[in-house]
């Protein structure tokens, strides 16, 4: 009697290691996109605040588009059409570009809200002490406005980290893509998705806890 050939094999400790590496890739692409996107978004937010009409007519619609179009569509369109204009980026590069712009679009409104939260009266008080515009921005607006919108920024950062799973459609082997590969091989979706969820939780939880601690300290 012939032996049955199995195309599937069970989940092993090596697979867990494989998922751990993928989780680090999720962390890396997220950290890079969130960092650059936050700086860019802060700049866009400042432009929206200071530019008023000009920014409202030019920058705001572009940011609206990136906020409104589903991320997966942005990723697929950019990855497939960027080479036409000579941008030959791999899945990681394309993911970073789109996640960065997406983060910037979300952070722009958060940043504008932060600047507005400081109030005209406070800024006049700072300027009346002889501070320049940029000293006022650096020493008064950034710390006060930053604290006011910090919870909103944390929400954006955690959201982008989870949304980074969508980069898997480009073939980048981050946590979700790694899970899909393992599910195909082991046919154990429940176990693998549970582990993937635990990894996402392990990445998000320390950030949200640290943010909560910071907010508590600032409130004192």
């Amino acid at each position, binding site marked *: 009697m012939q032996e049955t050939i199995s195309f599937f094999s069970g989940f092993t400790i090596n697979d867990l290691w494989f998922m751990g590496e993928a989780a680090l890739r999720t962390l890396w692409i997220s950290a890079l996109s969130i960092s650059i996107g936050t700086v860019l978004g802060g700049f866009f937010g400042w432009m929206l605040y200071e530019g008023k009409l000009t920014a409202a007519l030019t920058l705001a619609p572009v940011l609206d588009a990136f906020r409104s179009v589903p991320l997966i569509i942005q990723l697929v369109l950019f990855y497939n059409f960027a080479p036409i204009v000579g941008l030959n980026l791999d899945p990681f590069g394309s993911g970073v570009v789109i996640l960065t712009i997406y983060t910037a679009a979300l952070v722009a409104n958060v940043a504008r809200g932060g600047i507005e939260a400081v109030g005209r*009266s*406070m800024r*006049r*008080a*700072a*300027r*009346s*002490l*002889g*501070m*320049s515009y940029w*000293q006022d921005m650096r*020493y*008064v607006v950034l*710390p*006060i406005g930053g*604290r006011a919108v910090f919870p909103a920024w944390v929400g954006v950062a955690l959201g982008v980290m989870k949304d980074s799973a969508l980069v898997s459609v480009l073939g980048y082997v981050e946590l979700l893509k790694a899970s899909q590969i393992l599910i195909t091989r082991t046919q154990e979706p429940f176990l693998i998705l549970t582990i993937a969820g635990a990894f996402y939780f392990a990445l998000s939880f320390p950030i949200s806890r640290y943010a909560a601690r910071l907010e508590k300290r*600032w409130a*004192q």
Partner: protein
Amino acid sequence: MIEIRGLEKYFGALQVLKGIDLDVEKGEVLSVIGASGSGKSTLLYCINGLEPIQKGSVIVDGTDVHAKGTDINKLRQKLGMVFQQWNSFPHLTALENVALAPKIVKGKSKAEAQSIAESQLKHVGLGDKLNVYPGALSGGQQQRLAIARALAMEPSYMLFDEATSALDPELVGEVLDTMRLLAEEGMTMICVTHEMGFARDVSDRVAYFHQGVMEEIGPPEQIFGEAESENTRKFLANVR
């Protein structure tokens, strides 16, 4: 000396200052009184360049505040200002609030800036609150903190914009006492105020503003005793 000539200020189509001429000598305490919307606060904002003007000039120690090329940030170091809302920086302790501008604007070392801050906080009676955050201070204490913060820049003039009007009645006294102390020390002060007792007792001169016009100016005895303008008499009869 502050010299104001033909000062006109508009907010859109609304003219809020209609040709103000005023000199304030060194060491003088001038109180500016008048109804809300008479242009008193706007005058202070125009003096330290926080509001642009449409006509006239404001000269501080020979420098035109609104002239192109004037280093307004440097000039503002001479013009300490205290606002109706105290505007303490909530993320900094009292000491850090006061030390910030000397450090970043005047380039003092951290130790030097903190020493100035400590001495100014003691000056306004907050020597025991150095490491307290503004959120833990009363309104009166926060306003005294704002005064210390302005004084730390060693200004030649102090501009007070209704410094007591946002305070609870029981907290007004401590701020007025601090302002009295500064006046006794010879600080040149322009005080926009609704505190008629302060204007009468502490000022060298009192100016009454009415609908953007400086209706009358003179010593307190004249303004509160025998005002020449009918509008001044009516205003004082209503606030007494």
